[in-house]
Structure formats: structure tokens, C-alpha cells
């Protein structure tokens, strides 16, 4: 394992020192609790928007803390969800008395830890609502299982909920919007290489030199199927087909995310996006906003994922609203 780190046990806390040094006007860091907090939190009269999860997916979530997006992000160990007391510390840091929305990716650990935190916060009289993202169509959806994983749509939920909260909407409205976005999002990913969790010291899985894994998660969880590497236009189809089969994306404005897993260069991501965009256009799907880049990553894994979100005029307006975070920034 060759990494730019001091010690596998210090990776997360070292990175938090760096993010604090790099973005002083935007955020502050509670190092004891490993919580990244918007610089001016709590903001009077504003719903607090809190997310978090295992580390290793940067810029998700810590890179999305700032005006117009998250009020706080809780950073777990690499690929391990944060603990309830971290989440409770985040709630305390952003609580302005207008309630708090937890945005949780659908992993058993994340769901349970955020659930326990919400119970604790509730017991203190803080009103907490939760929205769980579960957009990964690689995983079969069923009432009898843990359901689908939350991946790329989480970024969009954080942006829209953050913008709505910034405009002063109440907890019910922010939660309803976040849920609407989460419900309208679907994703699918693939990996060319595994990542290596620093504490584990070796790759999570092995892939042959000509093999890819389809339906990969963002924690190096194995996917559902292996196949030989194929041209980008074919792989774009392999990612889009299950997404389009799962939800109708025609007749509404669509937000598209062509996301790198961390180790894939922009040059390749733009090439993949070209293929996706053409397929979507010829399927009559109207992509009105897009992001191409490494946003919801899995350490240094090579690969990419596609996320489509069925939007509406209100969601597009909130997407366009100003945001000022390390990872997403536009408007004033």
C-alpha cells in the first residue's frame, strides 16, 4: 500500500486539519467529534441540514459544508459510518431552534447510527427529520432486505435541501423536497480497479487486467457482475440501461451526474459523459443540468457512476441557487 498518509489511524483526523486550514471562511472543524461545521452555524431561523458517513468519499460530505448546502458533516472512519455522539455533536453545533434534517445514505450502519442520534436529539427537545437516500439500482430493492444503497443522489439531495433551508423554508418543506429529490434519483456504477482501505492495507477486491466490475458500491463492496473491459459507448449503455429501466425520466427536466470514483481522470469522465448524453438525448430525456467530476468517490478507485434525477422547476431553481462549499460553489 502506497499512500500519501502519516498513519492509517490518523488519515481522517489529518485530512480534517487540512480542510480546516484550506477553507477558513467557509467552515470550522470540531476535531474531538470529527464534525465539519459551517463557519457561521447556527444560523438563526434556519433549518439545520446535517449529513455524514464514512470517510473516503470526499468531497462528499465534508466538502459540501457551507452556505447553501450542509450545515455540518460527521466524518466516520474510512468507509465506517459515524457514531451517534458525533452526529449529536453536529446537531448541537447547528441547532438554531428551527429543527434539523438528517440526510442519510441507506447503509445499515449509517441508518442505525443516525437513528440513535435522532432519538438522543429528540429526547433533548430538538426536532429531527430524516431522509434516507437509496438510489443504487445495482442492488435489488425489496422489503425483506436492507434495500438499495445511497450513492450519487445524496449530493443532489444535499444541494436542494441546503438551498431550501437557506431560503428559510421550514423543516416540513425542506424534508418534503429532500424526499422528492431522493425518490426521483437513480444511479449505477462500475469499477476498473479496487480501492485500498488504509487500515486494511490491501485492495478490497482483485480485478484482472481486462476485467471490470459492474454495479459497484462506493465502499469497495463487490458489485453484481464482472465483464471484460469494453469501449466507453458500450459501458455507458451498461450503466444507463438499468437506470432507465427503473424509472421513467422522460417528461421532466433531468439533473445528470457523471461521477468519477476517485482514480479516473476528467479526460475519461468527459468521454463517458459524451456517450451518456447522446444516449439520453436520443431516448428523449432532457438533461438540463449536469456535473462531471469526482464527487462521490471511493478513495482511489478507478471507475465511474451515473446518477439521473427527475427534477421539476422548483428543484432546478434550488439547484441554481448560490452555494459556497469547498466542493460545489457558484453564485454569490
Amino acid at each position: 500500500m502506497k499512500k500519501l498518509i502519516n498513519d492509517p489511524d490518523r488519515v481522517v483526523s489529518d485530512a480534517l486539519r487540512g480542510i480546516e486550514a484550506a477553507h477558513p471562511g467557509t467552515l470550522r472543524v470540531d476535531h474531538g467529534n470529527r464534525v465539519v461545521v459551517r463557519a457561521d452555524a447556527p444560523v438563526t431561523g434556519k433549518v439545520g441540514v446535517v449529513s455524514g458517513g464514512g470517510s473516503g468519499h470526499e468531497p462528499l460530505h465534508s466538502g459540501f459544508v457551507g452556505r447553501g448546502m450542509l450545515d455540518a458533516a460527521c466524518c466516520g472512519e474510512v468507509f465506517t459510518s459515524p457514531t451517534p455522539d458525533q452526529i449529536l455533536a453536529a446537531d448541537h453545533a447547528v441547532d438554531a431552534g428551527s429543527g434539523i434534517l438528517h440526510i442519510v445514505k441507506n447503509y445499515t450502519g449509517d441508518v442505525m447510527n443516525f437513528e440513535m442520534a435522532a432519538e438522543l436529539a429528540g429526547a433533548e427537545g430538538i426536532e429531527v427529520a430524516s431522509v434516507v437516500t437509496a438510489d443504487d439500482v445495482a442492488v435489488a430493492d425489496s422489503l425483506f432486505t436492507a434495500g438499495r444503497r445511497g450513492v450519487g443522489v445524496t449530493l443532489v439531495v444535499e444541494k436542494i435541501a441546503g438551498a431550501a433551508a437557506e431560503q428559510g423554508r421550514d423543516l416540513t418543506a425542506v424534508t418534503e423536497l429532500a424526499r422528492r429529490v431522493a425518490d426521483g434519483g437513480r444511479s449505477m456504477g462500475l469499477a476498473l480497479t479496487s480501492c485500498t482501505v488504509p487500515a486494511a492495507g490491501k485492495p478490497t477486491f482483485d480485478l484482472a487486467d481486462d476485467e471490470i466490475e459492474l454495479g459497484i458500491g462506493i465502499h469497495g463492496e463487490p458489485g453484481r457482475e464482472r465483464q471484460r473491459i469494453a469501449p466507453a459507448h458500450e459501458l455507458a449503455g451498461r450503466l444507463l440501461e438499468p437506470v432507465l429501466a427503473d424509472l421513467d425520466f422522460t417528461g421532466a427536466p433531468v439533473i445528470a451526474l457523471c461521477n468519477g470514483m476517485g482514480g479516473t481522470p476528467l479526460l475519461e469522465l468527459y468521454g463517458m459523459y459524451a456517450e451518456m448524453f447522446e444516449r439520453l438525448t436520443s431516448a428523449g430525456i432532457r438533461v438540463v443540468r449536469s456535473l462531471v467530476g469526482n464527487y462521490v468517490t471511493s478513495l482511489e478507485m478507478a471507475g465511474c457512476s451515473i446518477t439521473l434525477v427527475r427534477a421539476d422547476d422548483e428543484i432546478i431553481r434550488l439547484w441554481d441557487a448560490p452555494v459556497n462549499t469547498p466542493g460545489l460553489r457558484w453564485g454569490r
Partner: protein
Amino acid sequence: MRPLDAFAVADWLRAFAADVAANEALLTDLDRQIGDADHGANMNRGMRAVAALDPAEFPDARAFTKKAAMTLVSTVGGASGPLYGTLLLRLAAALPPDGPIDRDAWSVALRAAVDGVRQRGRAEPGDKTMVDALQPASEAFDAAQDDPWGAAARAADAGREATTPLVAHKGRASYLGERSAGHADPGATSAAMLIRAAAGTLS
């Protein structure tokens, strides 16, 4: 049965901690197969913190166990943190006052602990989770003629073995669908260690 006090529970959890430390790589490797390769690190981080607790600083077994539970909850994260935390929280709440303890009292406490895990995780036996080691352990404890902890440990181990052919329905392994079959569940493996440690320290 060994009389109940904070030292007895501490001995139990330290034996478990030692077993987890010795098998960290094994637990992580099992999780690499069907999960995300962190169960060993998660459990070792948490149990090291628990093993560092000094039972002399707690008024009774219940207070010590509760502290151990909260320590797990706040150091482990992931799925196993809340699950093992809930297990010990419910156990603590069901424990009788310090002093002599009979098998019925342990039976009640163990059942409450396992029920807590099932509620927190919404998992049924057969879902390929730690419940597949814990539920048989609790049942074997109740059914045993003598040596209930020994019977529980054997049942937990058999339950853990039996997870191998199962298709996971809960936790991260469920994302694998059919491909989750053929590997033992990491959480069931650590849970079997927990019960085995109880047999070695509480009997």
C-alpha cells in the same frame, strides 16, 4: 455461576476483546468477501476501548455494562457499533443487582439483549447476520441441562457455521444478492466469539 459484579463482566468483555484482537485480520477478511473489509478494525477499535475501562470505577455490573455499551456505540460506528451497543445496553437494563446470579436471570438478560439486536437491525434469523449466532445461543442457553453458557457457545458457533450457505438479506452483504452465499458472516463470527468468551468467564 460466577457471582455478578463489574469485574465478572469486565473479565468477559476483556476475553472477548482479546479474541477479537487475535482475529482482527480474520474478521476483516470475512468482511472483504461480502462486505467492506472493516469489521475486524471496527470491533478491535471498540473492544480495545472497552477493555481499557476499569471495573473498579463502577458501582455495579449494570453501570459497567452500560458504560461498555456506550463506549462501543461511540467508538465503533458502522453497523456493528449500534448493534453491539444495543446488545449490551439491553443486557445491562435486564441485569439483576450484584451478587449471586442464577441461570434464569442470565437467560432473561441474554434474551433481552438478543431481542434488542433484532429490533435495532430489523433482522430475522436466516438473514445472514450476527442474529444467526445470537438467537441460537439464547435458545440453547435456555434448553441446556447443565453448562448453559457452554451450550450457548456451541450453538453460536454452529449458527455462525450455518451462515455460510445463506444469501444475505440484511447489512452490506445483502447488496451481493446470490454472490453473498459461500462465505461465513463476519458479524456472526464475532458474535460467536462473544458468547464463547462468556462461557469461559461467567460459568
